[in-house]
């Protein structure tokens, strides 16, 4: 075990305890923000349930930190249900979280579009409904690398999830109804698009091996967030060339009117430093303006990751005044924090 641990170059104890110990550590770092319910393996906002407020929970496999636990707190998520690394949570966790945060105004499940996530959240929602809790599940599917067709499981949920959690959380905090909060989250998904590239694979702690080999000088184009290969492999381009690919993929699919205000989110996959992400943002920003879009808001950093994968994704969300105000609203979580 010790040998395997050293080979992985990870700061961990036992590989099968990584998720639990990471959750405990996160909770210890922000005790004012959230608590860790060990028995149910969920993270719950410190003051939950908030009476009369629509509650929002999300969840998915671990390995995408700070998604979702880092987004639990005032102005964002009421709870997060982390599964094993890259494995969706089980219905028991989701049901426990739903019950823990229900303040009487309904509970929204934000679900990334993966077969496992959708199935486990569906089972939990059915049970919650049996218990008389009003649950609305919203599936996020913003990844333009995958075409939604009979030949795939549909587009994956990636970067727009972060934006949907922030804006939906702000709407819930402001006192919006279940229908209105759901409307905000659906709008972000409908008007958000993402595209990612990878310069390396990643090493899940349980297996200790990289999911795939990527020779130096090559990149995977059209990746998701589970360390899997992308749609195709290509020679590694410059930042300008990578920005060309990303902006073209995202804007052509979004087809926003010229002159639209957008939020541009340049996300690191876990192993790419901010030095490079800022540089990439500069390239992206120029191209968005050239395409007639105005990036009036942005987010740059590693917020939805794939363990230590090197690479980046771009998410663009078309804004209106309401979404812009919801983005600017105060948020107090481990990973995003601004305003009063």
């Amino acid at each position, binding site marked *: 075990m010790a040998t395997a641990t050293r080979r992985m170059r990870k700061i961990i104890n036992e590989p099968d305890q990584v998720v639990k110990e990471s959750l405990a550590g996160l909770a210890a770092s922000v005790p004012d923000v959230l608590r860790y319910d060990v028995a149910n393996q969920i993270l719950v906002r410190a003051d939950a349930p908030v009476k009369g407020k629509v509650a929002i929970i999300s969840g998915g*496999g671990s390995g995408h930190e700070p998604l979702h636990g880092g987004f639990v707190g005032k102005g964002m998520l009421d709870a997060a249900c982390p*599964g*094993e*690394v*890259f*494995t*969706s*949570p*089980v*219905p*028991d966790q989701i049901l426990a979280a739903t019950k823990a945060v229900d303040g009487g105004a309904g509970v929204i499940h934000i679900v990334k579009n*993966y*077969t*496992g996530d959708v*199935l*486990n959240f569906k*089972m939990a929602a059915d049970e919650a409904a049996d218990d008389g809790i009003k649950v609305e599940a919203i599936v996020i599917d913003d990844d333009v*690398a*995958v075409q939604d067709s*009979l*030949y*795939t*499981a549909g587009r*994956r949920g990636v970067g727009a999830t972060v934006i949907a959690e922030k804006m939906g959380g702000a709407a819930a905090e402001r006192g919006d109804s279940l229908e209105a909060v759901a409307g905000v989250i659906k709008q972000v998904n409908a008007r958000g698009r993402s595209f990612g590239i990878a310069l390396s694979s990643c090493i*899940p702690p*349980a*297996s200790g*091996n990289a*999911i*795939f080999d990527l020779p130096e000088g090559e990149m995977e184009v059209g990746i*998701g967030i*589970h*360390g*899997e*290969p992308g*749609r*195709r492999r290509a020679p590694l381009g410059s930042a300008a060339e990578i920005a060309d690919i990303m902006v073209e993929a995202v804007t052509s699919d979004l087809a926003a009117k010229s002159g639209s205000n957008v939020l541009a989110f340049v996300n690191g996959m876990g192993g790419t430093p901010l030095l490079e992400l800022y540089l990439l943002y500069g390239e992206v920003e120029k191209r968005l303006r050239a395409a007639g879009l105005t990036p009036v808001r942005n987010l740059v950093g590693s917020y939805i990751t794939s363990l230590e994968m090197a690479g980046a994704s771009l998410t663009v969300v078309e804004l209106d005044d309401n979404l812009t105000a919801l983005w600017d609203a105060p948020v107090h979580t481990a990973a995003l924090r601004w305003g009063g």
Partner: protein
Amino acid sequence: MAVAIAMDAQTVTAWMNEIAASVRAERDYLVQLDAAIGDGDHGINMTRGFDAVTLALSAEPGGTPGKLLILSGKTLVSTVGGASGPLWGSALRKAGRALGEGPTFDLAQLVDAIAAALASVQDLGAAVPGDKTMVDALEPAVTAMREGLARGASSGEMLRSASEAAEAGMRATIPMQARKGRASYLGERSIGHQDPGATSTAMIIRALERTVASSP
């Protein structure tokens, strides 16, 4: 006639234990298959799930075969996560319900139970044969069992043909392009790889054959 053999709760427990041993033994192989077209955790998730099933069944002596299959399914749902947890979990629960309340079951009931498992998988996962999923192994196994039953085959013969059909179905996933699950994101790059879900499904049917063959 094939009805001579009666299976009971012991058969179910032995089958689940046999599955746990199989997926544990092939854990790294399943991980390797999954790493090629998924995220490389299938062997780990299946091992965690069936280990939990073994534990749950050992804490539940007695109980009808149907009840034990339902308990096994519930345990998988609660411990596996991903797509395999709900799919196999629901499949075993439906199989358990198909067995009914009796203390024993015969071959015809076993075929109905496995067919109910297949129906559950297809209902939840919306996969059809050719999508490069566990259905590509399970569906031919059910067909082989039905044919075996119709011609009055012995239990051993029937389950051997089911295992062989499942393994042939598993190998047939290699040239397929995935249309469901995570492998579908790879598009044409999923071609040339054996589906990990079909592989573990073939192991589960092979485990059933071994269990029934070695039962008294």
